């Protein structure tokens, strides 16, 4: 059987200099028509020689850290942006869902938006007509069908958007983490629908941070790292590899050369230089359950900053933020002169269940964003086999509060 998708040597590069000031101004061009633009020599490979085949009927999960190139790959597959080199052979109609509700307009009614969204997704009008009842039924917004979308709650908008997408009938369906939103009940409904889609023999490509969903839905999983395919195998194989690989972080993570992505306009008067976890167990970034967690940061101050605020976010592996901590919650940091400073964040009562947690950090000075890293690394909380806490491994939830019971 021929593959339905053949991805061959796909490479996508961006010019970093050009990306930062991406609105070229005509003035620059007119002023220096012959002079080469500065900063363009720095190129960044979002994807570098990616190869894989997809066979009809397969559902494939694509995982990887932020910035590994997952979204770029999906954009190339759905023809939104062209690759810099390489080619993809497609043998079927592709529909992509990189966002829920593309083309939704707040002024239009629910009914009108179903048609607008459906046709942008590539459905013909008669197809939408045919599924209209079912779409409305699935979304559960019947009463509000003729209300403008701007009066909908975000949950309702989402349900409507997914309902339209659920009735697409392409041979290849490309989905980017659209399930990361919505309430639990609706997520379950979406997962059920997706399962149904993949069981019906259609090919599904699915990008996710949620390992459980990948395990549940996919028959194969591809791990992307820094724009290359690191692993291509069964979901459990790939996920194990991914998670265990994450543990092999250096004891001190050097952040000075990490490229800052994300949509913030960073001033970078102060920057994170490194981060390190103290009181480690037997390997870096592993600590025992119920132990104090100490995160040590080094911060380079390049220009004097006022009222510096450090923010830390700790999230679960499925990107659910459980702790959002700001230095200003505890004390104010006095004005800092140029130099390197270190700060410790100590969480004595961080009693979360065993598992892998991710760390995100940010720096802000009087109202300006200085530095931001969505995911600097992860740590694992472990329970030793013989300890009395062993059954903590099987418990659900995240937080384990202390001293909450009193005999009265």
């Amino acid at each position, binding site marked *: 059987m021929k593959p339905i998708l053949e991805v061959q040597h796909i490479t996508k590069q*961006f010019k970093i200099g050009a990306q930062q000031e*991406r*609105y*070229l*101004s*005509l*003035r620059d*061009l007119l002023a220096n028509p012959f002079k080469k633009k500065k900063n363009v020599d720095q190129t960044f490979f979002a994807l570098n020689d990616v190869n894989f085949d997809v066979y009809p009927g397969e559902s494939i999960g694509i995982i990887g850290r932020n910035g590994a190139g997952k979204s770029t790959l999906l*954009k*190339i*597959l*759905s*023809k*939104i*942006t*062209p*690759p*810099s*080199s*390489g*080619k*993809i*052979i*497609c*043998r*079927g*109609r592709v529909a*992509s869902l*990189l*966002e829920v509700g*593309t*083309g939704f*307009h707040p*002024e*239009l009614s629910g009914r*009108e938006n179903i*048609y*607008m969204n459906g*046709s*942008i*997704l*590539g459905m*013909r*009008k008669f197809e939408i007509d045919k599924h209209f009842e079912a779409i409305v039924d699935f979304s559960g917004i019947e009463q509000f069908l003729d209300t*403008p979308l701007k009066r909908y709650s975000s949950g309702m908008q989402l349900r409507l958007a997914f309902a339209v997408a659920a009735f697409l009938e392409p041979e290849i369906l490309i989905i980017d983490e659209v399930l990361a939103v919505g309430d639990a009940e609706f997520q379950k409904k979406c997962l059920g629908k997706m399962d149904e889609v993949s069981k019906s023999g259609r090919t599904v490509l699915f990008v996710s941070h949620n390992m459980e969903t990948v395990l549940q839905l996919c028959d194969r999983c591809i791990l992307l790292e820094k724009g290359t395919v690191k692993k291509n195998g069964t979901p459990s194989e790939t996920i194990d590899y991914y998670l265990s690989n994450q543990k092999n972080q250096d004891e001190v993570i050097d952040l000075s050369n990490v490229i800052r992505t994300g949509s913030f306009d960073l001033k970078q008067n102060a920057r994170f230089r490194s981060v390190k976890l103290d009181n480690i167990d037997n390997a870096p970034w592993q600590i025992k359950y119920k132990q104090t967690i100490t995160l040590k940061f080094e911060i380079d101050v390049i220009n004097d900053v006022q009222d510096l605020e450090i923010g830390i976010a700790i999230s679960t592996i499925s990107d659910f933020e459980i702790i959002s901590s700001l230095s200003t919650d505890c004390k104010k940091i006095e004005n800092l002169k140029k130099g390197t400073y270190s700060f410790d964040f100590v969480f004595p009562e961080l009693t979360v269940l065993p598992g892998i947690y991710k760390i995100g950090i940010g720096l802000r000075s009087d109202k300006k964003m200085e530095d931001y890293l969505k995911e600097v690394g992860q740590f694992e909380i472990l329970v030793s086999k013989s300890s009395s806490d062993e059954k903590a491994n099987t418990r659900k939830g995240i937080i384990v509060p202390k001293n909450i019971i009193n005999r009265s």
Partner: protein
Amino acid sequence: MIEYVIQAQNKFSLGLKELWHYRELFYFFTWRDVKVKYKQAALGVLWAILQPLIMMVMFTLIFSKALKVSSDGIPYPVFALSGLLIWNIFSNGLLNSANSMVTNANIIKKIYFPRLIIPMSAVLTALVDFFFALIVYALVLIYYHQNVIILKLIFYLPLGILITIITTFGLGTFLAALNVKFRDFQYMIPFMIQFLLFANPVLYSAKAFTNPWINALMKANPLSSAIQLCRSVFTGQEVDWLAVGTGSIVAILLLAIGIYTFRKTESYFADLA
């Protein structure tokens, strides 16, 4: 079975087959823009009728009453409105389509469909307004007891509209493509349109010029001949077919340049927008 290849830069093609496949999107985009345009206005779609009416009154006061501009022997309101009908397709269409890629950037970045649909349906939106304005025109014609030559109405008016649309498509797609890369055009276009309003015989007669160079330029100007065609329906004046011919050629040339530029650069819109 469909089989196609995604790669760096394909050879240049018009992509007509794809456009045909997505033909319904023309309708949906136009329909959305028309719907949204008048949605929160208390007078709603009445604005489509009021706008040309107000413009007509305004220009009549200035050009006819104050400046005494000649209007080829027909009442000035009829004269001005015939020019404004064509002019509004062009100016609204151009403004809409030149900004269309930027205003629809969120869609472009998330989904694929032939991009040409966006600037083209932006022009079609302006055409919808034109049909409303036509109602005003009919009323004005009745009010002034203006004779209409039916045969010319059937042939000349559609021809004039066609030339206008081709011109607007051409310039609109061209500017839409450039606007993605250079946002400067966003600021330049309103001035350009204002200038063109006075450079075209919308509010004055094309015969006002005696300079042979300007006359030659008017012959090459597709809008000028479109306006002439539209006007001759009521004045009974003969149309300068040479001007219509050269104007049409220029219009088609503009369309070719616009579509070529657009197709050449469209694959990078998602990276730039």
